[in-house]
């Protein structure tokens, strides 16, 4: 008796595969779409071509003065000359190894934490959150182990952008978790205090918060107490982003099914054990993408510190535009600064999408 043999699969119909079919389906289905495709392709090609021409082909790259910029395109010499300022602000030249070491360590930590299969990730995470900030402070500010003190008004450029963003996120996350738990607490006074805090900070623009931190905060301190300008800005940023973080975490807490809470209660766990062992691990896991999104927002918002007189990346770019020797190259500096921010924000948003897909398991509803 012969066994039944399946016929091999037939190839898909010829009119559903291939480049031509794809083009027909996605670009030229109907007269209106075809016309639209042609017009947009023409415009996009022209725009792209002139942008490439300006930024790469006709651009000047090497030199030290504006006389080096002879061609019609972009003058990247300007960025070249101010590279150190864009990276480190006015950090003393002989001490530049310190921010460089900081960048290097930061890159290693981020790479280790972002990579999926790193062993002992939790330990690395704890070191990054608990030890690295203090180490970085001593490294950058100095004053210990014979390192000369570098005052924070000399910090600038990408250094200050990263410092504000990282401190903002690392400090505001625990505060945010506490506020979120408080807002869902059963104690009415605690709950209303947390709610009022969150709603107030979320309702006002960051710039007024920074103003408050820079002009109102000194009035609130007892006489003789002076706070560093960077420190004041950090306080403002942390207070502000903690409120946003609280709402993100609250979203995660609400997404955990009630059964998890009840099961923890049934096991006889107390409030803190219940939160620490059952609820928060699950809630924080599903909120990681939203936390990354909050971080992206915070990262972009760090540029506002230039309004209270600090030189972040944008501040350095803005100062470069008013330099009488380099007048007329504002487009170059804006494009460069935009590129810096864009690279950071875009890669973070891709990472958050990747995480969202990876974590799309379990309790996602």
């Amino acid at each position: 008796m012969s066994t039944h043999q399946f016929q091999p699969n037939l190839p898909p119909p010829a009119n559903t595969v291939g480049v031509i079919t794809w083009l027909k389906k996605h670009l030229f289905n109907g007269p209106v779409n075809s016309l639209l495709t042609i017009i947009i392709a023409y415009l996009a090609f022209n725009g792209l071509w002139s942008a490439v021409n300006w930024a790469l082909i006709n651009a000047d790259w090497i030199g030290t003065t504006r006389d080096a910029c002879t061609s019609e395109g972009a003058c990247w010499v300007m960025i070249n000359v101010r590279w150190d300022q864009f990276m480190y602000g006015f950090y003393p030249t002989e001490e530049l190894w310190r921010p460089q070491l900081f960048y290097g360590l930061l890159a290693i930590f981020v790479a280790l934490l972002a990579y999926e299969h790193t062993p002992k990730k939790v330990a690395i995470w704890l070191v990054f959150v608990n030890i690295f900030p203090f180490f970085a402070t001593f490294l950058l500010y100095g004053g210990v182990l014979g390192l000369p003190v570098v005052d924070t008004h000399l910090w600038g450029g990408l250094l200050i952008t990263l410092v504000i963003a990282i401190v903002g996120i690392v400090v505001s996350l625990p505060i945010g978790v506490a506020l979120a738990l408080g807002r869902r607490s059963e104690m009415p006074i605690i709950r209303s205090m947390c709610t009022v805090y969150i709603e107030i900070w979320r309702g006002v623009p960051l710039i007024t918060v920074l103003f408050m931190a820079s002009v109102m905060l000194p009035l609130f301190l007892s006489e003789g107490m002076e706070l560093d300008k960077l420190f004041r800005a950090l306080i403002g940023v942390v207070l502000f982003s903690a409120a946003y973080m609280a709402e993100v975490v609250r979203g995660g807490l609400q997404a955990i099914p009630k059964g998890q809470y009840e099961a923890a209660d049934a096991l006889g766990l107390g409030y803190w054990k219940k939160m620490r062992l059952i609820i928060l691990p699950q809630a924080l896991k599903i909120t990681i993408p939203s936390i990354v999104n909050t971080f992206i927002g915070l990262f972009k918002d760090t540029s506002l510190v230039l309004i209270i007189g600090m030189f972040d990346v944008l501040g350095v770019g803005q100062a470069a535009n008013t330099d009488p020797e380099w007048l007329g190259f504002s487009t170059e500096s804006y494009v460069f600064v935009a590129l810096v921010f864009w690279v950071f924000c875009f890669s973070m948003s891709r990472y958050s999408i990747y995480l969202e897909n990876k974590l799309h398991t379990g309790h996602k509803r």
Partner: protein
Amino acid sequence: MSYKNQNLFYNPTFRSILFQVLAVALLAFFFYSIIDNALSNLESRGIATGLSFLNQEAGFGIGLSLVEYDETHTYGRTFVVGLLNTALVSILGILFATVLGFTVGIARLSSNWLVSRCAAVYIETFRNIPLLLQIFFWYFAVLQALPSPRQSLSLGESVFLNVRGLFFPSPVFEEGSNLIGMAIVLAIVFIIFLAKWASNKQTLTGQQTPVFRYSIILLITLPSFSFFLSGMPISIEYPELKGFNFRGGISIIPELAALVVALSVYTASFIAEIVRSGINAVNHGQTEAAMALGLPKNKTLKLVVIPQAMRIIIPPLTSQYLNLTKNSSLAMAIGYPDLVSVFAGTTLNQTGQAIEIITMTMAVYLTLSLLTSFLMNIYNDKVALVER
């Protein structure tokens, strides 16, 4: 041994009360110490307290004001001027951002690959660049690079664009133009009745009336009819180059233009994503059901998908509007006289009353956002899907 005799500290009610009393005490101590510090600091620096500064003469001019204002007006008046300027830029920004955002969001869903790619590039570019940078770019790199008034770019000798701003003709209302206003009001009243009648007719008979087409006809014919009837009382004033700048007509200062462009371009990229996800969130079964009923593609979109998508779109959309309003405070960076710039900036520098001024400024934004979230909650309750 009964439960009650155990250590009082393990009693949940007692613990809860204890913690709350502690929290209140901590908060009270915190406020007491900062207020105490603030009072002694203010005294030692010789800064006055209270809101009486609002009645003092301001003594500085403001470049753009929707109400009458000059140096002799009070600080209270500068507050109003700043508030109105914030409102102006927010409303303009919201209008443009909505139009642009919906266009890009729908383009993102287009079946044309190139159109949807272009929309994606737009979204990813503008969403990932700080707003302040975009404002600077539009103001310093684009608008400040425009020609001087003498070499302005012009459109038909009536619209002019130069480094001082955008100038276009303004209508001048002469005697008898009330009639036209009345005609417009009349047309709107007619349209409301027409819409009511049409929806009644549809529920009774199922027949549809092209209300939108009729409304447009009404809105155009009635006012233009009365315009000619009353002897053409509206004339047009063209901007003219006098000395170093244009006079007459309506002018838009470059600060306002840069701010509106940057705010709407930035916010539109967020609105586009909201629109896209809102439309995507409508269950595909709805589209299929509409197709099964024999509705054509455009009616499926208009009658089935959009109404359901709006329910998802509107709450995040309002929060974007709110963000736009809050972001308009960046105006200060380019010198547009908004609330933060004239009040928390110039007024604060002149009077030094940081606490009162920052609190008032924050209170304005806070009121706005609490009001919006209150209205949103009402809306949400109204439109929430009532499930079985």
